[in-house]
């Protein structure tokens, strides 16, 4: 296995990329072949991600499975430098799981299927890439690669929403998402260049994260630079993490996207943002982080409350989940901003837990929409009668989302609150109130649309297909497993958290 460790991270990126490239040559008019090919690639990615996660030695900690390839040498010194830390490892696993689930669920894509999977796999490659590289150039490269396919994925295969008085078209959602995310990456790019300039002035121009971190510790990156660079990273990555008030792309984008893309996007892509804040912002500009964290936790708390209240007032099932994602990403941001080991570990666990549960919710809502052609929770009712399994899976995900003990969400949120109570007590209290609102909208939604008397107009609905049931069952099992036995994840996360907080 020693040799495998040398190339495992490279494979994680190459397999989906090569899959995307090969898929271009599939016949155009055989959607099923394209789907099966994508499943094959996604299964390989999933297996790789599991192996990589298991091979990560939490006892040793630090950055593992390191492998660097020269890319552009002097004078800018960019290397294709792979390496995984304890925060990246669980997220790699998450991406492996959600990517496979999203590909499976996308069975229903029958138009330009081949192109769809080309873009979806490219997106998957980008996400893997961000989690496993140690060079800012490539981190940004993969970050943009993950954002790039979204415009077409939503614009071509998405759906528009009619609000009666106005129409939210898929083109609008796609363009808004794309422009806001790329606007965020302007800040990231400038921040990266600023760090590069600092390293260049110190005589060792580099984009390498480890070298830049060492440089920072030696005092070569001035406090002033860190002070202005950190908000650039926090806002830039924060846009993708759904940071209030730059979250508005997220509900519109998620709703407009086809099911599989919503799953990946809310499930994994938003985590890139939070990951970036930790991996780049906190590690490379800790002095700036220390100063700005109170602001970030304030915004994170607004996220929690604002997202929850917005979800409360939505009728469209997908918008409810979209705003609930904004709310839950708020916990992640709060956890990060505590700069407390328990809070930060909770944030990372929340990323994993939210990734699974939100993907599950989008998958189930997709299944309902596929059959009922409507997502309005005021019109849908009594779904349990015809779609029992779907209801069951959605309910479990909902319960995880409101923090029911025994499911993954509880532990994650509990840890975030523990961290926050020790650092910012009043905001932690507000966070708990947010969790209470979550319970209101989730339970109300369940009561209104899923349980109760069913309208005869829904009698024609059929329950989830075997593929959907399989994906749902697997995701539910993961939610429960992490809920009752989080140790395998947490011990890896804790090593990552330790090194991330070492600079403070």
């Amino acid at each position: 296995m020693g040799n495998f460790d040398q190339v495992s991270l490279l494979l994680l990126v190459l397999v989906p990329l090569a899959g995307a490239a090969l898929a271009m040559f599939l016949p155009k008019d055989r959607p099923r072949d394209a789907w099966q090919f994508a499943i094959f690639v996604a299964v390989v990615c999933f297996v790789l991600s599991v192996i990589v996660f298991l091979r990560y030695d939490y006892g040793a900690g630090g950055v593992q499975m390191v492998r660097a390839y020269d890319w552009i040498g002097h004078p800018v010194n960019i290397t294709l430098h792979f390496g995984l830390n304890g925060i990246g490892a669980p997220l790699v696993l998450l991406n492996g799981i959600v990517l496979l689930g999203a590909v499976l669920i996308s069975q229903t894509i029958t138009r330009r299927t081949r192109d769809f999977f080309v873009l979806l796999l490219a997106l998957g490659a980008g996400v893997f890439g961000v989690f496993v590289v140690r060079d800012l150039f490539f981190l940004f490269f993969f970050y943009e690669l993950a954002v790039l396919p979204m415009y077409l994925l939503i614009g071509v295969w998405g759906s528009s929403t009619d609000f009666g008085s106005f129409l939210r078209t898929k083109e609008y959602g796609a363009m808004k998402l794309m422009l806001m995310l790329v606007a965020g990456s302007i800040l990231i790019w400038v921040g990266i260049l600023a760090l590069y300039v600092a390293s260049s002035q110190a005589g060792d121009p580099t984009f390498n994260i480890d070298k830049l971190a060492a440089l920072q510790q030696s005092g070569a990156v001035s406090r002033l630079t860190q002070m202005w660079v950190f908000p650039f990273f926090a806002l830039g990555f924060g846009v993708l993490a759904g940071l209030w008030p730059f979250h508005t792309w997220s509900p519109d984008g998620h709703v407009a996207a086809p099911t599989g893309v919503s799953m990946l996007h809310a499930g994994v892509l938003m985590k890139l943002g939070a990951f970036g804040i930790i991996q780049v912002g906190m590690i490379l500009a800790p002095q700036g982080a220390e100063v700005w964290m109170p602001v970030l936790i304030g915004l994170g708390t607004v996220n929690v409350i604002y997202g929850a209240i917005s979800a409360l007032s939505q009728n469209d099932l997908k918008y409810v989940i979209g705003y609930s994602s904004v709310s839950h990403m708020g916990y992640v941001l709060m956890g990060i901003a505590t700069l407390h080991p328990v809070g930060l570990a909770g944030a990372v666990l929340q990323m994993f837990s939210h990734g699974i549960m939100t993907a599950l919710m989008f998958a189930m809502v997709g299944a309902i929409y596929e059959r009922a052609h409507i997502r309005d929770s005021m019109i849908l009712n009594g779904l349990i009668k015809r779609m029992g399994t779907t209801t069951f899976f959605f309910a479990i995900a909902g319960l995880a989302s409101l923090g029911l003990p025994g499911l993954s969400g509880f532990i994650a949120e509990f840890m975030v609150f523990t961290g926050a109570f020790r650092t910012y007590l009043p905001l932690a209290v507000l966070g708990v109130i947010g969790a209470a609102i979550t319970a209101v909208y989730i339970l109300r939604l369940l009561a209104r649309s899923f349980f109760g008397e069913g309208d005869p107009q829904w009698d024609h609905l059929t329950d989830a297909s075997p593929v959907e049931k399989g994906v749902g069952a697997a995701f539910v099992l993961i939610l429960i497993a992490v809920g009752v036995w989080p140790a395998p994840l947490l011990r890896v996360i804790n090593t990552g958290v330790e090194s991330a907080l070492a600079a403070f």
Partner: protein
Amino acid sequence: MPIDYTANLHLLTPEFVLTALAFLVFTVDLFLPESRKEWLAGLSVVSLVAVMVVAILMRPSGSVELYGGLIVVDSFGLFFKIFFLAIGVGIIALSVEYGRDRFEYRGEFYGLLLFSILGMNLMAMSRELLTAYIALELLSFSLYVMVAYGLREARSNEAGIKYIIIGALSSAIMLYGLSNIYAALGTTFFAGIAEELMLPGTVSPVLWVGVALLVVGLGFKLSAVPFHMWAPDAYEGAPLPVTAYLAIGSKAAAFALTLRLFAEAIVPAVDRWDEWQLVIAVLAAITMLLGNLVALAQRNLKRLMAYSSIGHVGYALSGVAVLGSDFALAAKSVVFYLVVYAVTNLVVFAGVTAYYNRTGQDNIADLAGLADRQPFVAATIAIGLFSLAGLPIFAGFTAKFYLFAAVADGGFLWLAGVAIFASLISLYYYLQVLRQMYIERPANPDHAADEHGSPEDHGEVHGHGDHEEAPVAPMPRPSLLLTATMGAGLLVVVWLGIYPAPLLGLIDAASAAIVPLG
């Protein structure tokens, strides 16, 4: 010391060969029947490749001056020569099918193209202002004719007239600038200017006027804002391959000249005189902002590409502004950017030409539904535009990152920030083109109603189903030559995006030849 004007003359063999071949093309044209004019395209490509081979075989080691220092043969010039010749091959590939239907005198077109390449080669080799000026005029005069080549098109003729008037004006301005520089410094040699500048007290108002007018003249050729107003009209009116040539060739040549001029005449004295950096930086900033902002309002593809290329000139100029700090890095990043920009634009224009040859349309809205009608053409244009917008895994991302890193490193972090912001603006209009090709449906009278009509339709559509069967007018396949050009271009765009190291190595060697000694 008397100067031996014939020393090392053999090193100019590639240029002599190119001139002879251009005349050969003109001569053969007289005897070829109309149906065989394609042979001239073949002959021109063979000539260009032959010149490339000759240039590589006859390269001297190190730099060798000719005509007493008017012209130099070095690795910088060689790199650009190969680059220009390759651009020429690409433009010919674009012209063959287009010219068959739309050029009156096809044979002469190829001859003119060869002459313009000769001009570009000399621009990259000149070490003296007047020689550079003459080379530039050789390029410009060929271009004036080529822009007006669509003989029965009023648009093209109008563009030609506008271009020649503005071009003549800018040449006059530039010439006056040169005379001022000569008045202030008493020399027109790049090295001589550098020597004079390094002496104390030589920066006089007359010199400032001279350099400013020179920059204005170059600005016209580069179509930098505020000297860009000819570009959109000329681009829109010119035949498509010529539009591509304007966007790629003439820009690259003007930058080759600019780079050598700054490297050898102005950068060596940067310790004494550095105010020009800020001037160029501001020029770059307004060029990229205005070019990209105005592009937002365009409806015509060629005009869009004109403004987009203005924006890209702004990025490349920002690299020129930092030549004074880390010269090697800045020069390298600008040259790399130019190559990537040229290849990417060639890809886009190949796609647009393929579309235009079959449909005769060049408005953005005409592209609607292209992804269903000709997926490869649509994908080619899409990838080209993604690369121009600076998205990975395409060459544009790598080139922009490299260039902006150099700009930031050179002390102009704000300029890098402006450039990155300008890229965001450009993404919007590139996405609009993508939207037409991939999301919109062709404007078909039968389906126009249900497409833009009732909202309940949108509420139901889930990306498949209702619209699936909507028939799309098929578009005939593009010609084999254009398909091959697009394919080759795409490969290079991806290759430079994921593995630019070999090309950067070549550029390293090329820019090493002009590293200022001071």
